């Protein structure tokens, strides 16, 4: 908004002290070329590693390969196959089951992890936490451990005979089976949670740290207890960070591959179509079914898009009282503005017109402005 206007002004000026009233259309040719030169290396690589592969995946997914001769010895011919590959992919019960499995995984693991990291962040930032820096570092540590190595470590901790956890539970009279058909999905969820909780927590801690102290002071003056502060002040203000971490977690869930692939050697319940990605990998590299594998890759990407956008749309929808309030605010626009002007002197802003997505930010600005005043 303001950004654009400033750039327009800046491009309007010429190197060498040309008049400042020039408009954007009169920018020097050097300034017109510059953004493209700066973007060129990124765009070239983006084209090579994103755009072309995605287009070729789409193309492949509509193509099937006929092998000539009994064993394909007379060469192969590609032909347009319509939605055949998609039909094959979606009729494959293993692939469909893997999508269902990932939905179940996502519905359980993503909320558990987001709630856990929110609680941890709130506890670390609460007045009652001792040595918050130390604990924060410990929780963040697993993020530095590659998923493959985390899986290797946990796989050793799941295997009976090797794992001290299993033997500990057995000595307590329990019969844990971390690698059974029903439990192994949650063993994978544990690995993912272990790796990423601290990372997500750090994002939320950063957001919490940006809440100005005055907001807490005010809450205390108003007699809010710790839970009210967390629920009514901190959580609404960290909402943007929570949305971001949730979207990335959803995308991460759909990509799950390394954990099940590595655990499959110790857990017979994991077949080669355990996750959608694993299924696509198997089709491509074990069966050379590139068309079907491409169709599956497209389905995975589409699912990631749809889930991410659905979640973003849901969270950007203002709550009902907020919508009513905005309607009223628009009607009383003039009154609100006058009220705002009078209150501006006292160092406060009316934010009733701010979009809920911006609530956190306007809230923060409010606080900082209050501090500056």
């Amino acid at each position: 908004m303001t950004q654009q206007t400033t750039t327009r002004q800046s491009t309007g000026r010429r190197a060498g002290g040309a008049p400042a009233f020039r408009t954007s259309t009169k920018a020097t040719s050097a300034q017109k070329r510059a953004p493209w030169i700066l973007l060129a290396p990124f765009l070239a690589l983006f084209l090579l590693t994103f755009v072309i592969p995605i287009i070729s995946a789409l193309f492949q997914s509509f193509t099937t390969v006929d092998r000539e001769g009994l064993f394909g010895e007379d060469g192969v011919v590609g032909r347009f196959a319509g939605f055949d590959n998609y039909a094959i992919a979606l009729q494959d019960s293993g692939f469909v089951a893997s999508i269902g499995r990932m939905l179940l995984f996502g519905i359980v693991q993503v909320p558990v992890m987001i709630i856990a990291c929110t609680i941890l962040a709130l506890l670390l930032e609460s007045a009652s936490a001792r040595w918050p820096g130390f604990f924060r570092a410990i929780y963040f540590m697993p993020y530095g451990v590659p998923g493959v190595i985390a899986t290797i470590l946990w796989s050793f901790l799941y295997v009976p005979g090797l794992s001290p956890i299993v033997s500990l539970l057995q000595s307590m009279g329990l019969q844990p089976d971390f690698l059974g058909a029903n439990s192994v999905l949650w063993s994978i969820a544990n690995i993912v949670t272990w790796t990423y909780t601290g990372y997500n927590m750090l994002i939320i801690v950063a957001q919490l740290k940006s809440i100005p102290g005055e907001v807490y002071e005010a809450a205390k003056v108003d007699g809010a207890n710790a839970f009210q502060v967390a629920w009514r002040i901190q959580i609404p203000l960290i909402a943007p960070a929570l949305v971001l971490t949730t979207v990335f977690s959803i995308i991460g869930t759909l990509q799950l591959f390394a954990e099940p692939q590595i655990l499959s050697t110790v857990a017979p319940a994991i077949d080669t179509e355990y996750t959608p990605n694993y299924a696509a990998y198997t089709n491509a590299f074990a069966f050379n079914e590139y068309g079907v594998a491409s169709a599956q890759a497209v389905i995975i990407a589409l699912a990631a898009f749809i889930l991410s956008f659905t979640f973003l749309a849901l969270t950007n929808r203002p709550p009902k009282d907020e919508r009513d309030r905005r309607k009223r605010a628009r009607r009383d626009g003039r009154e609100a503005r006058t009220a705002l002007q009078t209150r501006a002197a006292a160092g406060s802003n009316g934010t009733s017109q701010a979009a809920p997505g911006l609530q956190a930010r306007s809230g923060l600005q409010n606080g900082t402005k209050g501090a500056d005043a």
Partner: protein
Amino acid sequence: MTSEAIEAPATAKTTVPVDTTSISAHQRRKLDRSPRSQIVVTGILVVVALYFIVPLYWVVIAATKTTGALFSTNGFWFGGEFALWSNLQQVFTYDGGIFVRWIANSILYSGVGAVLATYFAAAGGYALAKYDFRGRQFVFGTILGGVLVPGTATALPLFLLFSSMGLTDTYWSVLIPSLVSPFGLFLCRVYAAASVDTTLLEQARIDGAGELRIFHTVVLRQMTPALVTVFLFQVVGIWNNFFLPLIMLADQKLYPITLGLNNWRSQVDRLPEFYQLTTGGVLVSVIPLVIAIIVLQRFWRGGLTEGSVKG
């Protein structure tokens, strides 16, 4: 509900105008502490910390044991012969020192990949933030779409593309995809829009500096905090990548450390000595990462706020 939080500062200011600004967050913390809640909260934090430490603690213990002791003694404490040094020697010398080669490969992939990826993302992000040109929104929208595309969805077609170019099973096959970071460009754009001083660019132009020179001398310096964050993200991303090298590489000599260790681990069923190679190798590869993560923690904090607030 948020309205209360937002109205609150004003109330505070009018009632106790002096105190609110003079009390720092730290002082407030101390005032609020009650001994009981402190014990409860810290207790919870300790229990959670144990969960995060257990696997790493286990591998430290396991790496000191012989294969026999690994199965016969308590996994949570030292037992049997102290075999750490001989285990490590095994790790470094097995198969002509291939472990060292894997580490070097990982450093090559993530070091070179992250440096160039950060540079390209900075140039692109700055161009999108500070120039007004036709197609700007389209380019940015397309790249933003790239952030949401799962990396593994492009890996398979990328393999087919690279294999038709004869690039598979070479260093390039892993390095080239590592040079692109749509998320890095997104962070750089947000940061450049907020922090690169337009008047400074103006001055440089008036002084007759070329656009590329302005980028290299003025802009990059101002963007340093974002560059560090993008670089670290990319290092971790490349270092941890498994799917891409798995499908691209067949030659063990080109493996990054993740693929190499997985290769060792997959042999434990047939050859139990691989337990020692794997645990020792995991220990050696994890220690520098964990130290780096803890030391560089603050850079994740700063940069992420920029992205998350906008997101």
